[in-house]
């Protein structure tokens, strides 16, 4: 079970409160977590990564275990603490603009 924390705007859009818990098929990577997230909440397609290129949107960042994973390859395995559910996978709206 992967725990995902969404930023407030995306929680509102997906109509969820608190963390999202996802079953991820195969190896847990940013890509597979996002695939599972978008399957559960199709309205989030395009809000975190481009729907066509699947690249992370410029002002969205990924964190886990106090590490910035934003620039990691999307198919790099997530830390064990995330895979076991001990730590969440954080999707953050970058602090930019007003």
């Amino acid at each position: 079970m992967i725990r995902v924390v969404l930023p407030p705007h995306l929680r509102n859009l997906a109509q969820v409160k608190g963390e999202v818990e996802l079953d991820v098929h195969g190896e847990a990577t940013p890509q597979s977590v996002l695939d599972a997230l978008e399957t559960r909440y199709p309205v989030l397609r395009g809000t975190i990564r481009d729907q066509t290129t699947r690249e992370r949107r410029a002002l969205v960042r990924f964190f886990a275990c106090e590490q910035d994973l934003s620039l990691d390859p999307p198919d790099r395995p997530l830390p064990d603490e995330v895979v076991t559910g001990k730590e969440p996978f954080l999707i953050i709206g970058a602090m930019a603009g007003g």
Partner: protein
Amino acid sequence: MSGVRVLVGTHKGAFVMTSDAKRKQWDISGPHFTGWEVYHVKGSPADPNRLYASQNTSWFGQVIQRSNDGGKTWQAMEGKFAYDGEPGTHKWYDGSSRPFAFTRIWHLEPSLTDPDTVYAGAEDAALFRSTDGGQTWGELPALRQHSTAADWAPGAGGMCLHTIILDPKHKDRMFVAISAAGAFRSDDAGKSWRPINQGLRSEGIPDPNAEVGHCVHRIAMNPSRPDTLFMQKHWDVMRTDDAGDSWREVSGNLPSDFGFPIDIHPHEPETIYVVPIKSDSEHVPPDGKLRVYRSRSGGNEWEALTNGLPQSNCYVNILRDAMAVDALDAPGSYFGTTGGQVYASADAGDSWNPIVRDLPAVLSVEVQTLT
């Protein structure tokens, strides 16, 4: 009982304002989609309870919202906006070429006859259409693939397709306008397009009379006279009586012919409204006075409408989609400002009152006439 519903998009959400035909007391709901930029909200002429809203942030991109109950509840649509085929290139500010890239939807134009069909104008400039109530979108690519498109360049606000007008008498005819490419017309439901910019003159571009490259800010049509269009260009207020084949200037005695919105009285097709702004480098009203100007002669002769509007120390702007008119027998006019005020007139502009004063910057105002 008749009434109106005013749909307001702002920098931080959308608002729905309803009133009876007196237009004195208002019920206001919102903000909807709080914190998101809402460039446009518009209702279907075929089903007034069907509304569409364009919701966007730089962080999380584009979302289309739909309401089936007049804005009481909303549903986020899942469809994506993707250019059809190779995106091609357009000119950048420095003259270099760069690929078309989707940023946001500026304008939503529901079909005149089908609540599930809606057109969307994008930045970078492209025209999309949904025929399933906004759930899926497809581009009408002929516009972006026009032979002049590689020479289109953005205005200061981006290269946006901001105006979509559906012709009520010629079912396959539509008009669009792009800043800063100009106006285009299709006579075959979007399968092909041609620029309609003859008569526009824009100082500051290499050829002032060029076929494309004009910064058209908005175009308005009265449905009873679809061959007559009025245009607020970057500078100049323009008029055509041949569906855009030729334009002539009707700025006349305006204190400034720079501005953004333009609209037409619903029952008097020669009565036009604009809001002059001082200049393209100073986006504020001339002399700190917020004045709507009305022409009852199809242009050239204009009168200032000031009753109820601030006549000192006012430095707000009125953006291109932030003016609307209702169609009641005594028609109402509405506009919103970047200072967060939404003004309404129930007497065709003779006097104005604020519906609200303290919203986020207003990006768009539309009104539905309810019967």
